[in-house]
């Protein structure tokens, strides 16, 4: 009579089998993980390259520190669904010539393979001033994507950025004597008289007059700059309206128009940066008596600007544009990509959003 297999024999056989198979399975799993990690890393490098371009653009070309602020987030944000970096990859619908959040192709199904590859990624950008280097910031780009076992694969890339003061071609930064003379000329129409005497005669407060006078001077400079560029824009637009204009000529004219609008927007942005502190200060502390019977008290434009809601730094300037290339960021982060087409400073409004 033959006996069956003993439990011990079965266990030994299974142990031998497991000892042979487990290392094989483990090696395969390890190999798959390595491959996936390599693929994710390559994808992450491509993403970081794109993000670095945006950050470097903000620091080098546009020289717009606010752009960096707008790109930062306290927590990782998923790339799909309107992340600032991939909010508008392509212009895909009306209004043509303008990249708009949620209307144009961003990281959504319409982006095809790009969406399938990057939809699981989250991105967080943080920055801090670099000690010992004024104007330099160290930005950290942190990417993460799901890894096997409900884990997360995290990749960090540091980046050093350099910001320099923007070259504002406006008189706000000029010495106080020059500014006082400009205020006396523009606000009081008395260019030869000292501002202190004019203010004293009007029974006004010197600091309030200097603040609001600087706003008037900046707006005046902006208006004069606009007067210079407006005829050029009109001429280019006339070229475009000519039916006989050839294709290349039209392309040239359109490009020139975009450049002119860019210059206009740059000037508006510089003016906003210059007048914002004064407006902000005076919107909180200005009293009717502070302007006395000076012409500034009757400057309705100034009073209208002051009556706009301000939120103590939480507000943002909005530049109304006719044709602009934006990436859905706050308008305060204007960069050279924006093309301001609506013209004068009167179209500038302060928004508390």
């Amino acid at each position, binding site marked *: 009579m033959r006996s069956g297999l003993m439990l011990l024999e079965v266990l030994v056989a299974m142990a031998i089998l497991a000892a042979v198979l487990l290392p094989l399975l483990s090696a395969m799993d390890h190999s798959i993980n390595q491959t996936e990690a390599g693929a994710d890393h390559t994808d992450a490098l491509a993403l970081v390259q*794109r993000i670095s371009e945006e950050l470097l653009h903000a620091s080098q070309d546009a020289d717009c520190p606010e752009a960096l602020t707008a790109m930062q987030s306290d927590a990782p944000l998923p790339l799909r669904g309107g992340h600032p970096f991939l909010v508008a*990859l392509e*212009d895909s619908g009306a209004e043509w010539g303008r990249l708009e959040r949620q209307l144009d192709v961003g990281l959504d199904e319409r982006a*095809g393979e790009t969406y399938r590859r990057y939809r699981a990624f989250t991105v967080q950008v943080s920055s801090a001033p670099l000690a010992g280097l004024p104007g330099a910031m160290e930005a950290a780009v942190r990417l993460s994507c799901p890894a096997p076992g409900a884990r997360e694969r995290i990749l960090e890339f540091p980046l050093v950025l350099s910001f320099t003061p923007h070259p504002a071609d406006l008189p706000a930064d000029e010495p106080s004597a020059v500014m006082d003379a400009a205020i006396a000329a523009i606000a009081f129409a008395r260019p030869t008289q000292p501002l202190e005497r004019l203010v004293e005669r009007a029974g006004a407060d010197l600091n309030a007059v200097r603040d609001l006078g600087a706003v008037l001077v900046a707006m005046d400079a902006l208006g004069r700059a606009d007067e210079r560029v407006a005829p050029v824009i009109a001429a280019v637009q006339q070229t475009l309206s000519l039916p006989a204009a050839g294709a290349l000529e039209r*392309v040239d004219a*359109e490009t020139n128009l*975009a450049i002119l609008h860019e*210059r206009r927007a740059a000037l508006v942005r510089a003016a906003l940066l210059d007048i914002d502190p004064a407006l902000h200060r005076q919107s909180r502390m200005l009293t009717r008596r502070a302007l006395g019977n000076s012409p500034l008290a009757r400057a309705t434009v100034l009073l209208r600007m002051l009556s706009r809601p301000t939120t103590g730094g939480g507000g943002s300037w909005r530049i109304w544009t006719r044709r602009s290339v934006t990436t859905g960021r706050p308008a305060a982060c204007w960069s050279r*990509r924006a093309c301001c087409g609506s013209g004068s400073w009167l179209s500038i409004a302060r928004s508390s959003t």
Partner: protein
Amino acid sequence: MTLRRGTSLIELLFAVSVAAVLLGAAFGAMIWARRAGEAGVASHVSAQMLARRSMEALTRELEESIEVVRPPPGATLNHLLVRDKLNRLLVIYPVETSGGLSLRVFRMDPTLPDAVPEDRVLVRLLERVAFTTLGPGMVQVHLTVRDQGHAYPVFTAIRCRNAPSEAEL
């Protein structure tokens, strides 16, 4: 006392052959999976390399330019027209081929009307291509290559190195 019968040669050979078949199958499966994985990784890497080479080729052509003429700022097209510092016009346009899309580059010099324009293939095996102008001197390229069944997307913004700076504008 009961005596247990030992394993016969037939039983031993049978057990060894079963184990050999099992192990052989396991090794075979592993080798197949490894080869399939390697082939997958190889084609994936090949697609990545192709994407990178394509982008490098485009960057080399475009970075010497002074301005992006077409598409206009903010617009997206599947072709591109730039002007280089010698005032030559460079057109990069897609052509449908049996292996997918190819990008061809056509360069003409308006100052030399008798010269034969350059027209050559720049990039092959594309599935999708889009050029978006972000400014007069910057264009975003978004393309997907497909090589050996694997698609790989790549997107980057290329700056014209000779474009006038903001201050010059």
